[in-house]
């Protein structure tokens, strides 16, 4: 490799110029790898299964303001009406909606008592139609029956005897064998026993930023409360047509309440992850502009260094160097600079990641991502230098004779 030695000696004469490009590549690498890592982390969070049949479900709020209003009777007629609307698969009353960021949580523990370890879970108060209405998958045990459903008054502190929990929650309670959770008794509110009768595959809690977002439980309650949600699942493709129909039917059937916020679960997901989405878009823009700037910087500097060396290139051509050799000289030069930049960049990327891990509780970066960054920047460098190198190769041998 005679060429390499030559390039290194030439670089040594213009250390600062080369170092500037190398540093630029290093910083680009540092930012790019960490930004992509953050993007992937968010995408991973967004891809978690909510457990719901998101495409075909929506919900609305029902707020009662009439005095002396028979909530229980109205609930029965409302549910009966919605469930019998053509196109509706099933419907329930519920106290909170997954991913909506407001809801209830309670802690469950293996043994009764005040100072026992407890695990938090989201609470969904529903009836035996919940699994069908939300599109959940019951993977062990049984569903509630109509007899299990109790009426809950506002402020009531007692809990029903049965519950259905998510698989993730079962795994947390019984790490050795989640299936063994069926039939077990756990304690809510420190002392009240509840028997786990079934396990659903997945159902997320209302709070996407909570580290226990996969832990939820269904509790067989109808609520006698002035504010609640109706959660409705329709046949494939009929959701959007049914939303206004059901809203109108409910609003007109009874003037002592307000029906509001008729919302699809898909919109709720979008809203819930809006910040994630926004951050990802911004980070993507940063990565792209950064790569472009570095690329154009390489182009600009290469053109200048070639202009300065026009005479030398002409001389080399006159002495018998082929166009290919001239081109490969500049490509090789860029490769060496990129290599230096990438080495510094790897250190920088890991360093920045370590800072992010300690300051913002991110997880450590993967090796594959760094390797990807290295390869990507080599390619960017080579592409950027391609045009100047071709220009250099086009320099006529005669140029050497003209200006001397």
């Amino acid at each position, binding site marked *: 490799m005679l060429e390499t030695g030559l390039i290194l000696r030439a670089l040594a004469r213009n250390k600062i110029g080369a170092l500037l490009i190398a540093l630029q590549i290093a910083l680009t690498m540092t930012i790019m790898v960490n*930004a992509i890592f953050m993007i992937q982390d968010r995408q991973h969070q967004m891809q978690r299964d909510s457990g719901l049949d998101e495409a075909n479900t929506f919900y609305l709020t029902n707020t009662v303001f009439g*005095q002396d209003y028979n909530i229980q009777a109205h609930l029965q007629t409302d549910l009966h009406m919605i469930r019998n609307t053509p196109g509706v698969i099933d419907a329930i009353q519920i106290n909170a909606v997954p991913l909506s960021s407001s809801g209830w949580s309670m802690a469950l523990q293996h043994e009764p008592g005040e100072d026992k370890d407890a695990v938090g879970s989201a609470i969904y108060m529903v009836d035996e139609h919940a699994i069908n209405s939300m599109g959940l998958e019951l993977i062990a045990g049984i569903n509630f029956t109509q007899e299990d459903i109790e009426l809950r008054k506002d*402020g*009531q502190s007692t809990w029903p005897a049965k519950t259905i929990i998510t698989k993730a929650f079962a795994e947390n309670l019984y790490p050795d064998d989640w299936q063994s959770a069926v039939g077990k008794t756990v304690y809510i509110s420190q002392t009240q026993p509840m028997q786990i009768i079934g396990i659903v595959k997945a159902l997320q809690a209302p709070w996407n930023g909570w580290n226990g977002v996969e832990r939820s439980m269904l509790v067989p309650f109808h609520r006698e409360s002035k504010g609640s949600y109706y959660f409705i699942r329709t046949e494939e493709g009929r959701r959007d047509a049914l939303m206004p129909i059901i809203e109108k039917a409910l609003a007109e059937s009874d003037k002592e309440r*307000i029906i509001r916020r008729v919302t699809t679960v898909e919109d709720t997901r979008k809203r819930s992850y*809006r910040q994630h989405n*926004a951050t990802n878009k911004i980070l993507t823009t940063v990565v792209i502009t950064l790569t472009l700037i570095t690329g154009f*910087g390489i182009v600009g*500097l290469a053109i*200048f260094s070639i202009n300065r060396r026009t005479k030398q290139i002409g001389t080399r051509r006159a002495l018998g160097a082929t166009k290919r050799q001239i081109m490969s000289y500049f490509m090789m030069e860029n490769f060496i600079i990129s290599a230096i930049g990438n080495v510094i960049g790897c250190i920088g990327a890991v360093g920045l990641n370590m800072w992010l891990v300690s300051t913002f509780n991110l997880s450590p970066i993967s090796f594959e991502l760094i390797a990807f960054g290295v390869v990507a920047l080599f390619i960017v460098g080579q592409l950027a230098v391609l045009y100047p190198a071709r220009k250099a190769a086009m320099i006529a041998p005669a140029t050497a004779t003209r200006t001397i």
Partner: protein
Amino acid sequence: MFSYYLRLAWISIVRHWGLSLLMVCAIGLGIGAAMTTVTVNYLMSANPIPEKSEQLYYVQLDSWDVNDPFDDGLNPPDQLTFTDSSNLMRAQKAFRQNVQAQAFGVIEPEDPEMLPLIVNGRANSADFFTMFNVPFIYGSGWSNQSDESKEFVVVLSKETNDKLFGGEDSVGKSIKLEGNMFRVVGVVDTWQPKPRFYDITTGAFNESEDIFVPFHLIADEKISRSGNTNCWKPTGDGFKAFLASECIWTQFWVELKTEQEKEDYLQFLNAYVEEQKQFGRFQRPVDNRLSNVMEWLEVQEVVADDAQMMMAMSFMFLIVCLLNTVGLLLAKFLGKAPEIGLRQALGASKATLFSQYIIESACIGILGGILGLLLAYLGLKGVEGLYGDYMQGLASLDTNMAVLAVGLALISTILAGLYPTWRACNIQPAQQLKSQ
């Protein structure tokens, strides 16, 4: 001389327009990105009530579970129990005090044609309005006497007043809220502190409330509360039991005028907790805190992690852009070696050359700064569009930021130009003249 150098710089910039454009774009992008994120951080951490942020204190008491401390024992709970806030309210030990919670209700307009209105409310004490300098168009807040005699009074927001009374002075009129008649005592002018410091637990950048009603109405079950509720101990049945429980859902602010008053109030709180310990409450070590507005925003981490992370990244981005500029300026100035040699041979001193090239760098910096300002404006619009109401009104450029943007561009470009200029000034004239 200065105008002559400016002209020279302009000629040089135009002659190498491709390279100049590259530099201006690079600086513009770097400044644009940095300013966008700096602005978001600056507005998120802005002082929402600068005139008295040092006198308003948020009260925290550690009433939590002895076996499983709140926030792993790092911070006391972020709200108070109803029992504690009522006791503190009754004691009246501060210059002003306010107990509050989020509430909601349905207003039934008199006009049967109009649909009922669901409103977000705040249930608070009389002092709320004077403590937080709430501006009024009509009337004022209610008095402490109204609180004591448990009157049904309400303060409306401008928007609610527009909806219900078409913007007229509604003081003295009545509205039907949750089935009860309330007398309007005041209408608040547009008021939207950012961050909405007085209640961060329900979202630091949420809109301010539609109505304000006396806090005691919650306990009397005349209005429904909303917001966050956090319990560690089982409660008994019914609302009375809930009020007496260890659940936290109220917020307590005090206004204390001097450092001495703050000391005294903290002592009072400590004595109060010691006293409560005798009833078997407050089993954790005494950890009472008074945080002023800015401290409270800090504790509650109002500036989002995302925003901080992006600011760090955008500054690194700016550094890449500047490195780019250093390289390009170096290439450009060294490319002018023959010209510099000639000027030196004709008697130009190093100082004149230095000022000439620094002025050229500065010109590029200013152009980059202006482009950066434009990009920051677009960037902020973009951020606002992407984040939606979460960032609504947070993304706006003020004069401070505009001056900072151009200044930052100018200074950083001059810094970036220093080394290339120095190199250019040290060119040996003899060598350059020989090769011509």
